[in-house]
């Protein structure tokens, strides 16, 4: 590693695994969609959903309102299915391609029985398919399903039919429609009534193949009185051309249920000149369907050349709670337009938004958030705090909050500020014997503390390291 | 003059006051003592008419124009204009509202109720300045916003000033001693003592006996679990001081 070129130090997950894959030809048509559905042996209602979404998608234009610029994507120039040649979803580890196992091991996600993480169940997704899920049997004892959506739909057809597209309808937006038409795989989580999931569930996404879009779809259903903490991580190889990632995540929390969803997003972000990187166009939304339900999003966004992502909560149940905690770091020529929507419909609903944006080099970071208090939402409360930190003189930080209140009993507070890591601060730390790296880490930790505190412990450590690594090149 | 009969009240569906009886005559000072969470402050809020608290049973009677009337049927401002005064444990800050203007609005509302000519700004200011002098306070109180950036002692003294201006017949002082140093406590107690008369009565709600060294009560009631469990003279407070509440409760 000491000999590695500079670029490798910037992004240590940038390697590519050379394995045989089964890929569909480039381009998107009804025919391709039927093929995806057939290869996954899907029930008819899924194919039907895909086709409806596709027919809607072709009538749409790409959204232009976000504060990001990128060349027009040639959607017919992409491949919509790519899977390792060996049959996916295996019964035992021996059948998994050893190259893939090694890939995940290099990424810090050991899957083998002896090495795998004890407190976390992991679903490993490689390009379009789920490779394997650890701890499946342990979870099954509680009646919990955690695994690939493709397999899950066979086991729980009624549940998938009931909830798929119920929170993010395929008509929601351009990318959601595209995802609904071509989604490859993703995770299904089902927590039965009254069950507190005994371990964190984690999905690890890896884009490997070239010129392939990744379109996973995650569906999490927490039945009455249940609890689950879900984590996702993502990386991709370094390439000069851009890769498209357009995921959809739907969360449903029924009465008294709680879902905690944490993301550490580290897709390849492109190089200093802005070449390559992942376009991360993701629709994530949770529905607090039942009374006293709670959905909490935490995200640490450090990757992708372009991010367009607004994990949201619809607060439908009375007394439901929505939370959004975000750290978004952009450097080089990255562009991130991210934030949340809190839609208050039920009575006594509460939401909290904490957003920390760090922009470096020539990047642009935008917080875009909406807080909507409907006329029906008596006694709704929202508190929003979004802070930006600019590092260097060439980056741009924007804050665009939308606050819409139609109920007089609402109390909404929004505050935002900007700050910076100055050379004075670093000098001050140094004069007290603290090295530069540690100084930056301390300052960053201070700035992001409110968000990191909401992450599971191992994830928080990982997140801090990730930010430090990214910033090293940007703070002079 | 003031009588509580079998009062049951609570908040959020939970009963806190569980059958309270109390009679107060003009000129008397009653002390209600009790451990934390015994319902003392709920009692004061219920008498003042805070809408968060629900009364499920009982009556709170006040002599209004020589008739005992159930004030539970009145709004908080009607109760105040008929002579009930609650000195808040935590006086509310009202940014932007001038203290003198607030006092005048309050005073004139009571005057209107009684069919007496309202006071204009300048004669009212003179009237308040006299009260301030009487209480030994500083006049700079008047130019400030109601309780905004007041110290704990200043807030409590502001409550006493309001009491002096409004001349209520029944004053309930909710932990007027909390958060005060000895000097502030003396000043507040001194103010209260100056306002005592044969026509008005006081209920002191307190956790500590200390206050009663400065304002000597006629009657002391020990409050626990929403009702009075023991009543006596001022010596009862001393008993609490030496033996603690547990001794009396069990």
């Amino acid at each position, binding site marked *: 590693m000491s000999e590695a070129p500079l670029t490798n130090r910037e992004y240590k997950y940038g390697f590519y695994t050379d394995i045989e894959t089964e890929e569909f030809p480039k381009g998107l048509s009804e025919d391709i969609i039927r093929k995806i559905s057939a290869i996954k042996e899907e029930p008819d209602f899924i194919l039907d959903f895909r086709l409806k979404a596709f027919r809607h998608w072709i009538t749409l234009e790409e959204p232009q*309102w976000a504060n990001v610029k990128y060349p027009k994507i040639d959607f017919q120039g992409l491949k919509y299915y790519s899977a390792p040649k060996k049959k996916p979803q295996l019964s035992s580890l021996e059948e998994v391609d050893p190259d893939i196992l090694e890939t995940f091991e290099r990424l810090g996600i050991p899957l083998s029985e002896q090495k795998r993480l004890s407190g976390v169940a992991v679903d490993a997704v490689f390009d379009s398919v789920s490779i394997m899920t650890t701890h499946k049997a342990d979870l099954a004892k509680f009646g919990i399903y955690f695994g690939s959506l493709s397999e899950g739909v066979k086991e729980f057809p009624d549940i998938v039919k009931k909830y798929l597209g119920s929170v993010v309808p395929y008509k929601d937006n351009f990318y959601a429609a595209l995802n609904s038409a071509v989604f490859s795989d993703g995770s299904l989580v089902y927590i039965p009534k009254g069950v507190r999931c005994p371990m964190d569930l984690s999905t690890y996404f890896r884009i490997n193949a070239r010129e392939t879009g990744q379109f996973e779809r995650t569906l999490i259903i927490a039945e009455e009185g249940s609890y689950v903490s879900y984590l996702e991580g993502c990386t991709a190889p370094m390439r000069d051309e851009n890769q498209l990632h357009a995921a959809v995540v739907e969360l449903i929390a029924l009465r008294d249920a709680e879902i905690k969803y944490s993301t550490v997003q580290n897709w390849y972000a492109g190089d200093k000149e802005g070449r390559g990187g992942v376009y991360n166009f993701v629709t994530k939304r949770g529905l607090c369907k039942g009374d006293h339900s709670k959905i909490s999003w935490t995200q640490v966004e450090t990757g992708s050349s372009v991010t367009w992502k607004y994990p949201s909560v619809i607060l439908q149940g009375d007394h439901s709670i929505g939370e959004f905690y975000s750290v978004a770091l952009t450097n080089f020529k990255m562009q991130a337009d991210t934030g949340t929507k809190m839609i208050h419909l039920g009575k006594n609903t509460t939401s909290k938004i904490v957003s920390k944006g760090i922009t470096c080099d020539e990047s642009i970071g935008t917080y875009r958030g909406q807080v909507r208090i409907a*006329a029906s939402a008596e006694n709704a409360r929202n508190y929003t705090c979004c802070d*930006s930190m600019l590092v*260097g*003189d*060439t*980056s*741009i*930080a*924007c*804050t*665009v*909050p*939308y*606050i*819409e*209140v*139609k*109920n*007089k*009993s*609402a*109390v*909404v*507070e*929004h*505050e*935002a*500020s*900007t700050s*910076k890591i100055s050379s004075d601060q670093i000098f001050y730390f140094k004069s007290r014997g603290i090295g530069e790296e540690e100084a930056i880490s301390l300052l960053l930790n201070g700035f992001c503390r409110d968000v990191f505190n909401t992450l599971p412990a191992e994830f928080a450590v990982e997140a801090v390291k990730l930010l430090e690594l990214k910033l090293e090149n940007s703070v002079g | 003059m003031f009588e509580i009969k079998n009062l049951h009240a609570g908040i959020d569906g939970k009963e806190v006051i569980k059958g309270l009886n109390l009679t107060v005559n003009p000129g008397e000072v009653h002390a209600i003592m009790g451990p934390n969470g015994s319902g003392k402050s709920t009692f004061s809020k219920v008498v*003042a*008419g805070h*809408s968060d608290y629900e009364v499920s049973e009982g009556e709170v009677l006040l002599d209004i124009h020589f008739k005992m009337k159930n004030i539970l049927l009145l*709004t*908080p*401002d009607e*109760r*105040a204009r008929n002579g009930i*005064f*609650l000195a*808040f444990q935590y006086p*509310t800050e*009202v*940014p*932007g*509202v*001038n203290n003198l*203007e*607030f006092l005048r*609005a*309050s005073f004139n*509302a*009571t005057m209107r*109720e009684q069919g007496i000519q309202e006071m204009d*700004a300048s004669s009212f200011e003179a009237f308040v300045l006299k009260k301030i002098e009487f209480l030994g306070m500083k006049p700079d109180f008047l130019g400030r*916003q*109601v309780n905004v950036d007041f110290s704990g002692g200043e807030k409590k003294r502001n409550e006493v000033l*309001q009491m002096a201006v*409004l001349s209520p017949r029944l004053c309930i002082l909710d932990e007027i001693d909390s958060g005060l140093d000895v000097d502030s406590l003396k000043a507040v107690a001194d103010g209260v003592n100056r306002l005592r008369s044969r026509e008005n009565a006081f209920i002191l709600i307190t956790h500590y006996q200390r206050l009663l060294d400065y304002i000597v009560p006629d009657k002391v009631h020990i409050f626990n679990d929403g009702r009075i469990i023991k009543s006596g003279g001022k010596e009862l407070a001393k008993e609490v001081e030496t033996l603690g509440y547990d001794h009396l409760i069990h």
Partner: protein
Amino acid sequence: MGQIVESFEKVWAEADQLHPPKDFVRLIRKELESLPWPDRGHEDFKYTNLSKYLSSPFISSKKELFQIENDNAYHTITFINGFLASKNVDTKSIQISENEANSHFLEKPSTQIMSLINWAQGGKTVHIQVLSTCTKPLFIQYIHVGSDSQSLIQPRISVALSPHAKITILEDTLDMGGSGGLVNKLFMATLAEGSELNHYRIQNDGYKSTSNGSNQVEVHKDANYNTWHFNLGALLGREVSQIRLLAEGARAQLKGLYLSTENRQLDQHIEVFHDSKNTYSKQHFKGILRGKSKAVFNGRIYVAKDASGVDARQLNNNLLLSSEAEIDTKPELIIENSDVKCSHGATVGQLNPDQIFYLMARGIPAAEAEEIICRAFAEEILFSIENLDIRKKVTGACAHVLNQGGKYAPV
């Protein structure tokens, strides 16, 4: 719907007979032809579909005769139906002229659609040159007479402050007809080095009219622009400000109050451009909403790349007093320099029940308690008006919302 220009063709034809249109006016009309309708599809009109207020054809209001009373506390210029009607200015510090156009602003007319519509009428711009400090305030009075739903009233004023000159300007409206129509004011100001403008605007147009006030200000080195906006009248009242801080030491302070009642809507759009380093801005806007009314606050702070040492603050507080009222607020920051202090805050709430209880516990009836607290909310802005005569005028104009029948009367 056809094109926007169709709504104004009649007005233009009439105006052209008086003043043949200059090339720039033709150019602006051309630009309007290509503009889409300002409807909800456009970010600036997300909360206000302006199209429906512009879609019927307008006819030009006439210059009417009206008896004007002058107040000696002010230098006064009076517009009747948008046309300069009288000048009562007895100082050499102020020069007033009517120009074909103000070339300075025309080099870069704003892309704001409403200011383009104002320019497109052609005619003359009233130019006010402030040569030196003038202690007596200048009162710009707009009188609308005999308006109806098709009336179009478009005063256009440019003010230039010479270096180190100081002046206070008050704009107010007297609507005698009150039968609606579109009032589309354009106010431009250039503040030369070290000058200071205290600018009070009362938007008090008739309740049936659509009112738009564009306010474009350029602030040069060490100049101070202080403004107070009172957005009170009209069925739809829009106040649109673009403030450019062009050189070091330029400052802008914007305060505002919008009091919306019944089925009305009051919008404020504020853009402050920190184009230079060491420039400062502070915004504080407060709104009270009653009835079925609506209000929009959209404040944007823009800090340019080289603008280090900027201090920019923005605060927006709203009191929502009716269950049918709606507030949409969007405080934006766009920052391209790391060495800045920027912050913004926005709150939406109602009267604090603890405060109401406290006042009631002192004998003050609920309605009066609400009024006292409401007034205190507004007074934070009202009391920042130093000129007591202007403060009295403004407080009077706000009374319809602040006095809801209670007895409270402040000193």
